[in-house]
């Protein structure tokens, strides 16, 4: 694969976007976007509406093909040539903005479907859970606080519980990198705080990229922040640093 730029963190870079551009009918959703995420890092991505946050996730997860640029995962794989299923199986999990779970199936079954392992059609016909896999699901139910609701239909969960279930499903995939789109949207303050703690626990073993609007939530994450604006990186650093950046203030407070 292509040689990465002379990045000092080359070995420890899990995700590297290099000059990625995407346009829709002339509108440049991403404009020569470059940034990297380290292995084990928790990263917050913020930016005003239309800054390209969701498009960036679409490009990384294979939903959208960029017009230009490279997306290098785990030090060598170019993701721009692969489809969603392939990218998911390489170890990238994605949480949607609107909680997306399988409403007509139980919480347990939702986690089971996400369980890392074979994704083949014919294997799935004769699939049976092993005791170890069952234990993993039980542990995950505990992690996301849904043990009591294991038999409930996912459609009957509260909004916050659905968000947590979806995060649980992502973790069942055993990903190296999680892309999480506005996990705190529609949550109560207590749930928001718990979600931030959960994401902080997850990072370390894995890299987590969180796209978020809610500044309180970003503060609670206590992570390095990347500010996107008009499809490229406007500023990067700690929350305090970017909040004091004159350009960031201008973008957020109006022009």
């Amino acid at each position, binding site marked *: 694969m292509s040689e990465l730029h002379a990045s000092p963190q080359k070995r420890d870079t899990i995700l590297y976007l290099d000059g990625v551009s995407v346009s829709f009918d002339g509108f440049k959703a991403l404009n020569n976007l470059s940034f990297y995420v380290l292995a084990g890092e928790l990263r917050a991505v913020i930016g005003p509406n239309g800054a390209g946050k969701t498009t960036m996730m679409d490009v990384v997860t294979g939903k959208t093909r960029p017009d230009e640029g490279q997306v290098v995962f785990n030090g060598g794989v170019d993701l721009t040539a692969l489809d969603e299923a392939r990218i*998911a199986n390489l170890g990238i999990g994605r949480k949607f903005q609107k909680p997306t779970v399988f409403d007509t199936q139980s919480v347990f079954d939702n986690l089971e479907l996400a369980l890392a392992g074979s*994704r083949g059609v014919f294997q799935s016909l004769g699939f049976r859970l092993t005791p170890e896999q069952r234990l993993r699901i039980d542990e995950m139910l505990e992690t996301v606080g849904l043990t009591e609701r294991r038999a409930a239909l996912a459609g009957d969960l509260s909004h916050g519980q659905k968000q947590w279930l979806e995060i649980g499903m992502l973790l069942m995939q055993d990903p190296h990198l999680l892309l999480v789109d506005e996990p705190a949207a529609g949550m109560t303050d207590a749930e928001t705080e718990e979600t931030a703690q959960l994401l902080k626990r997850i990072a370390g073993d894995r890299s987590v990229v969180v796209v978020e609007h809610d500044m309180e939530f970003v503060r609670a994450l206590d992570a390095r922040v990347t500010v996107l604006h008009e499809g490229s990186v406007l500023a990067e650093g700690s929350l305090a640093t970017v909040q004091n950046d004159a350009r960031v203030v201008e973008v957020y407070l109006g022009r």
Partner: protein
Amino acid sequence: MRSAAGPIVTAVLGDATGRIVVGLLVAAAVAVPVLNLMVPAGSPLHVPPYVVALIGKYLTFALLALSVDLIWGFAGILSLGHGAFFALGGYAMGMHLMRQIGTRGVYGNAELPDFMVFLNWKELPWYWYGFDAFPFAALMVVLVPGVLALVFGWFAFRSRVTGVYLSIITQAMTFALMLAFFRNDMGFGGNNGLTDFKDILGFNLQAGGTRAVLFAASALAVAGAYALCRVIVASRLGRVLLAVRDAEGRVRFLGYRVEYYKLFVFVVSAMLAGIAGALYVPQVGIINPGEFAPANSIEIIIWVAVGGRGSLHGAILGAILVNFAKTYLTGAIPEIWLFALGGLFVAVTLFLPKGIVGTVPAFKFGGAGGGWRWRRLVPARGRSEERP
């Protein structure tokens, strides 16, 4: 040691619904022929031959409805062209029955079916070769619809054609086939189709015994297809399909190749529809291009919707009830049938969105009261501790 049979039996007969449906079908397969052949015609218990033929036809429709419910109810694939697979299975059987006529045709030509003699054809087209043999024809009954579904599904699902767009192209597919089969030079009898059959496997098609066996075969085919569908929907594959129905994007991002899952179930469904067509043709004695008509395919959807989408036994019930109503109404007041059918669909959509089995308590075999949930009707195997 786990045997493979255990989970399969549980998936099919593990709940009251499965036992009732399979029980009723097997009972019908035995009782109706017995009451028709063994009980004298004067007895009140006698089942007259026309009823055997009628219910036998309904059962082939029930099998067709099952095939549609498998993809529509459990994978969200709304096919408005499933009549095409039914008709292709029917034509494959019809071609075999045509070859069985031999010299008994009007022209007494052992080499060519009557319609080809009439068209002045000199030799049998290559695609008629092999249909003399029943095993070959039986293979074609599932292979032709299966291959068409595979090719069609491959392009449609890989290009991610979903929802109403998919429905429209399935409709276009059956319409195109109808126009093709109407043409005389296609070699399938054109407008008139294939008819005038004499016998099947050496047994006279008009004989009571043959008709009783065809009836029993239809009932058992529905039972077998029902069992197969239950095994599929109770497996993890079935749960992936439900997940595709409810949130396709999520399934992709979990790493599943959605198109392969859809393709599998679409092909299985097309094969079941083909078998339904093959059982239909010897019982009604004719197959013609009218079976490809788009309206036929839409009617199947109405059967499933009336019975209850996504429950399997609802499809069987819906097909039988709607066709019974059709037989009755087209006899009693023929001019209102189409209005009644349209009205039925509107009424079911508005007032019974879950169909009869989702609404009428007597048909909720699985559980008492509460909301209708497919999971209560189809428990997954060996996972009972996950149930409430």
